[in-house]
């Protein structure tokens, strides 16, 4: 397994290189020159030239690319063009709020969706199954913005169940601000996840070993929790682990509307401002996390399915 892990880690090098190249090309093709925005509308040609020189925008593209690669290797992306803050600090500052929102939301969504998936698979074809599928489709059809507008207007403003928006750096005060965005995240994600897990579980329910277990007289809960759930774990794990690295990116809409100073809004600001250092840092970070997430999934497969071995 160690050889496999080393091989996979080595494979990440060309992947990260490819990501950096694509980000660099895309930014230079469609990102726009950040100089004009940095200097404002009063800037003259001399100031523009000075700033371009100061930030190295006047250097040949290949040199700019190599200095980007150096940043990737040293994890030092310098400072944001727009806010002049150190990017590592921006990421650290944004990670806390994003994860405060995303970890409980994700855990709750996963627990609920796997549980509901199991339940409706058990009641397959009955009214509870049909009703759940209808709710899932409805939930998937509504955009997150609709939930946010409804939640803020009715649940928060009209009925006072939650704060309308805001954020607190201290616990437990922060909790009050995270509850509504968390429930919205769960409501939006549940439809897709329940349908996915239901399908994964149903595939297992139709297997011969389930019929054999029933014929042997095993109880339904035992069949579901001991056999079906365990055998459904491969697709479930794939879905869960692959989402974990993306949690760090936060949820842009939720963060913007609820005033949560997380990484989602930092990334979107960076795109709007052509803040290339921040875009580079975030893209590379997510790419690396994604690659490691994939590796972790493969390793976890061996734990839940003895048939899988890593060579």
């Amino acid at each position, binding site marked *: 397994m160690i050889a496999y892990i080393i091989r996979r880690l080595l494979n990440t090098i060309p992947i990260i290189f490819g990501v950096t190249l694509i980000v660099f090309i895309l930014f230079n093709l*469609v990102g*726009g020159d950040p100089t004009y925005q940095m200097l404002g509308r009063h800037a003259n040609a001399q100031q523009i030239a000075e700033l371009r020189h100061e930030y190295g925008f006047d250097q040949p593209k290949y040199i700019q690319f190599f200095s980007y690669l150096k940043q990737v290797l040293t994890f030092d992306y310098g400072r944001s063009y727009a806010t002049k803050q150190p990017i590592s600090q921006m990421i650290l500052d944004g990670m806390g709020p994003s994860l405060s929102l995303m970890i409980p939301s994700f855990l709750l969504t996963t627990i*609920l969706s796997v549980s509901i998936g199991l339940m409706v698979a058990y009641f397959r074809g009955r009214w509870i199954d049909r009703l759940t599928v209808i709710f899932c489709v409805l939930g998937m059809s509504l955009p997150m913005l609709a939930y946010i507008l409804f939640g803020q207007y009715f649940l928060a403003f009209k009925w006072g169940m939650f704060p309308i928006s805001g954020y607190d750096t201290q616990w437990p005060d922060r909790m009050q601000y995270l509850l509504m965005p968390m429930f919205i995240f769960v409501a939006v994600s549940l439809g897709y996840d329940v349908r996915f897990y239901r399908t994964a579980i149903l595939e297992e329910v139709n297997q011969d070993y389930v019929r054999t277990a029933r014929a042997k007289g095993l109880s339904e809960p035992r069949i579901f929790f001991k056999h079906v759930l365990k055998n459904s774990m491969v697709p479930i794990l794939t879905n869960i682990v692959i989402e974990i690295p993306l949690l760090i990116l936060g949820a842009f809409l939720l963060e913007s509307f609820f005033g949560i100073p997380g990484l989602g809004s930092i990334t979107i600001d960076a795109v709007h401002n052509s803040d290339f250092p921040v875009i580079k840092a975030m893209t590379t970070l997510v790419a690396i996390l994604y690659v490691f997430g994939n590796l972790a999934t493969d390793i976890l497969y061996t734990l839940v399915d003895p048939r899988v071995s890593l060579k």
Partner: protein
Amino acid sequence: MIWKANKNKKSQCQHLLAPFLIVSLLGSACSFKSHKEPPNTLHLSVPEKIKGLDPIYAEDLYSGTVLAQSYETLLGYHYLKRPYSLTPQLAEKMPEVSSDGLTYTFHLKEGVLFQDDPCFKATGGKGRELTAEDVLYSFKRLADPKLTSNGWWVFDDRIKGLNEWREASLKAGQSDYSKEIDGLKALDRYTVQIKLKKRSQLLLYVLAMPYTSIVPREAVEHYGREFINHAVGTGPFKLAEYNPNSKIIFKKNPTFRKELYPSEGEPEDQQQGLLVDAGKSLPLADQLNIEVYVEMQPMWLNFLSGKLDVSSIPKDNFSSAITSDRKLRPELVSQGIQLVKAPMLDITHASFNMADPLLGKNKYLRQALSLAYDENSFIDLFYNGAAVPAQGPIPPGLDGYNSQLKNPYRQFNIARAKELLAKAGYPEGKGLPPLEYASVASSLGRQQTEYLQKMFGAIGVKLNVNTYSWPQFLETVKNKRAQIWEYAWAGDYPDAENFLQLFYSKNASPGQNDSNYSNPEFDQLYVKSLDLPAGAERTALYQKMASMVIEDAPWIFGAHRMRFTLFQKWLKNYKPHEFAHGNFKYYRVDPNLKQ
């Protein structure tokens, strides 16, 4: 068997719902100690994240507003008087000006202290007195090429020796702050002398802008590149918490000098209760909470629920707050909410690229397009009627504005537009290639573009729309690649020069004259106007320049927007001011009314 299984499932369902219920109960159980704040705390908002607190980067309005609570400038604006007038702030009085108009001497107030901060190591963290050397240091920072300030334009080519100092710094790779500059001298501990290269009335306005705030050298050196996250000024509020993405808290500065609420204002100020606090020590509020709302809906709902003291009206909520006759809706009036309307001193416009071989050389074509542009319906659709159509480049309220002026090319008239289009050589638009229109990618940008296409389509002119991100848009415009685009300009200071310089040929792209208008006669008048004091002669020059750009039509003049602001009944002394960035010191909350 089946019954048993169902029963099991029922209890299973309860288990499945348990985490949801626990989280929900946990949430309400922790409901929630709120941070204690004094009853006289202001709750204000900004619609953008704050880019930093270093004055030399205060290009955007909101960063300027936030930092101006802590930092001060030599001059400020009278809070109540209109038209806007300058008053001394850190200066003891308005400067003495030499007879040739080139030398300005400022006497600083004595005993003004910087806020206590660990950067003052010599005094154990106690803020020291502000002196003339601090003024010189702060002004040189604006010119320091290493710092790439976006506010350098305020001093560029204005102060004797400052450009040369900048050039020398650029060559040497570092700036020598100890080097004396001919035009910037400390005559003694409290006296600053500024010598200009040429006469300019605008220097005084510049010295009231956040860019020229006075900072202590110790703070800049102590915090280094982190100085952008600190505010160590002489102002009425001291920074207590700074999260530029969500919340900024200021507390009353205990070492703030004695400054009093003004006792004079406009005739209606007395009636509106704006002079009740006359003569009281500033700041009136104990704490300032500024929250960042990048989305309008939560800001609006927070205002309606009383958690914010002031709010603008989001475009989509305008009709739910304002009646068709532009009054506040009764349900809001009954809550004690008050409406105040004020001109924004700005102008929206569609620019023609005068460097473009087609549009730049065909005045009739530009005039025809201007006549086809129905500003009134545009204002109704996109500004909820809260704007007045612009007839020329100078907004109402500024010297040079002529309320009687009717721009002959801004009276919506399709027939006349068609006539001029034919005169331009394109009857009914025939033979005219589609014009390239640059637009910023946003839903509002798309709606406005579609409307523009419809208006120009009515006279047979087609638009090819190119949509860009904001940086791409700027790059396209500044490199003279677009033919037409829409833009707006908000005044930096209350002088028509700030609007007329947008047509001065030396400011052409990548400068602020991005329509690249070039007219030697206009340039001559513009340069002459810089030399003149306010008065009839300068007003006549401003009007003459305005009439030249009206005739040449490098822009389709759009609108001067109005600011509709709502404030709660408990907020006292609110009066909108376009340039007094540090005006929160005048506000206070009446805790009895708030309860």
